[in-house]
């Protein structure tokens, strides 16, 4: 290792030799860096899971354009949209079809605890609006009080969910009615609910008698293939005389939701700060390790100064140490971080996972911040006055 580094640097790898001279301290320093990495990984994982959980329900549907109320910052927030605008929008030659989407939460008494299912009321004869996995089962919903259940819902046993088939459905009571699930799809618990359920709009209106068929939560539109969504939206805005409505592409609506969750909702802001604090703690740990090391070797550095070594040499040594710590500390940090995210994901059913981009950005961040701490730590070198050696 030492020989390899020597070839690499064109000089003795002083930093490496210095760090590895005291094995116990080296292990402690690496543990410190690894801990900082784990901290950032966990915070980043939670923040990313919030994003993934926010975007997940959007993957159940595949319209081109979505019309929502002005205050509908997310799928479940905000007021209704009058269905008359759906008819108006159909007047545009590029709009091929439209569907009202109803959304509300239903409680499900699971004995030891209640879980909350975010329920979507949809038109069961319009599979074009749904993701293929769901579209194939859509006809099942034409039966009154039929449902397609989220098999990843929190509190639903794996085997129990796997047993749900048209020939062996699962019935349960909610909102004073008996709902029967004939099939399942892959949803998953989020921050707002424990899982999802799809029912027909008729079943939805029976479950929620106060809701009116003339006022869905969102209006979904599909466009003729090759149509320019932006041009259609511009025309729809003149066609629909309610300026408070938000008419956006479906992808834009999902992105707006994500930005809203990350920047305007307390949870998003808290997770963002979690990442920031993780980075700061990591910076402090690496700085502490490096500056202690510089302080411990002031006498040696002063000797090297006396021998004629210049500032670039010392900066190189400290950078070398920063790189060694950053790279070697990252490995255990990645292993422990991934394990913690897996365990947390299994417990919460949130989409918590180590992603390659997370690993890459934390690695680059570790190297950059290590080098930065190293650069700050070299300021202590000014105290290494060779004249004091005599």
């Amino acid at each position, binding site marked *: 290792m030492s020989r390899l580094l020597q070839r690499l640097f064109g000089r*003795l790898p002083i930093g490496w030799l210095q760090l590895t*001279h005291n094995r116990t301290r080296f292990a402690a320093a690496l543990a410190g860096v690894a801990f900082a990495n784990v901290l950032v990984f966990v915070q980043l994982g939670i923040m990313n899971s919030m994003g993934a959980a926010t975007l997940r329900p959007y993957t159940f549907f595949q319209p081109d354009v979505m019309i929502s109320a002005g205050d509908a910052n997310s799928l479940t927030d905000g007021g209704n949209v009058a269905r008359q605008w759906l008819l108006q929008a159909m007047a545009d030659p590029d709009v091929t079809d439209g569907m009202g989407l109803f959304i509300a939460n239903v409680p499900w008494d699971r004995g030891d605890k209640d879980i909350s299912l975010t329920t979507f009321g949809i038109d069961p004869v319009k599979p074009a609006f749904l993701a293929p996995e769901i579209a194939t089962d859509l006809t099942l919903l034409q039966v009154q009080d039929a449902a397609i259940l989220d098999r990843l819902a929190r509190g639903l046993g794996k085997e129990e969910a796997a047993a749900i088939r048209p020939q062996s459905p699962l019935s349960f009571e909610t909102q004073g009615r008996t709902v029967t699930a004939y099939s399942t799809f892959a949803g998953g618990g989020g921050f707002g609910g424990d899982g999802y359920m799809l029912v027909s709009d008729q079943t939805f209106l029976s479950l929620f008698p106060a809701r009116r068929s003339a006022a869905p939560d969102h209006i979904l539109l599909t466009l003729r293939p090759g149509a320019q969504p932006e041009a259609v939206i511009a025309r729809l805005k003149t066609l629909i005389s309610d300026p408070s409505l938000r008419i956006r592409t479906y992808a834009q609506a999902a992105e707006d939701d994500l930005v809203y969750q990350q920047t305007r909702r307390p949870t998003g802001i808290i997770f963002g700060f979690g990442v920031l604090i993780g980075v700061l703690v990591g910076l402090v740990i690496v700085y502490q390790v490096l500056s202690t090391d510089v302080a411990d070797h002031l006498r040696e550095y002063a*000797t090297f100064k*006396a*021998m*004629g070594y210049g500032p670039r040499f010392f900066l190189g040594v400290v950078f070398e140490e920063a790189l060694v710590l950053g790279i070697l500390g990252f490995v255990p940090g990645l292993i422990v971080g991934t394990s913690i995210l897996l365990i947390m994901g299994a417990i919460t059913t949130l989409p918590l996972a180590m992603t390659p981009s997370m690993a890459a950005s934390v690695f680059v961040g570790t190297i950059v911040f290590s080098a930065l701490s190293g650069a700050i730590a070299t300021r202590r070198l000014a105290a290494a006055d060779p004249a004091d*050696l*005599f």
Partner: protein
Amino acid sequence: MDSDAVVDVRGLNHWFGSGDMKKQALFDVNLTLKRGSFTVLMGPSGSGKTTVLTLVGCLRAVQDGSVKLLGQELNGAGEGQLVALRRRLGFIFQAHNLHESLTAAQNVMMGVQVHGGVPDRTVEQAALHALGLVGLADRTSYLPGNLSGGQKQRVAVARALVSSPALVLADEPTAALDKDSAAEVVDLLKRMGQSRGTTTLLVTHDNRILDRADLILTLEDGRIIRVEERN
């Protein structure tokens, strides 16, 4: 100025502290070190010996007077010039000041690498050769922690001399050593200096060394009070 002089000091004054605390440490010091000479600077502690050494060794800025080292004036010299000059010197400290994390050979290699651009193999060979000259050929891969006091100081001598410096500055190199080790280290300095034409300035109050000196300067209260030429 004598063209054969490695060091030529004229009218050197030096002060420490500032304001009311300002105290003069050196008064009108003059000295000349001829190429290849072995000079001992004597005097009680606090007499200013070390100050002279650090000024000549480019480790302190010259305040007043002239210090010419290897033909270059140090008074008013820039940091870059001082660092470059230091590379042509060899320092031996009272404490060996070896790097604890480096082996004996690696410590000596640091004395070669400072010049830069030397191939790894050459650096290593030079270091091993220097260690052989100080009688430590069988200790090259030892860490300083596993060497005796005399052996460590010999490694330090090898480090100072490995790149054949024009001037070796040694500050009480024998203070921490027993009689035999001290004699060995001084003989080594003297012998290697002679064979390579190196000039040596050695600060000490160890009388055991004096009979090896070509020139003995005695400093007291910042003034040179006696100049004694031998041989």
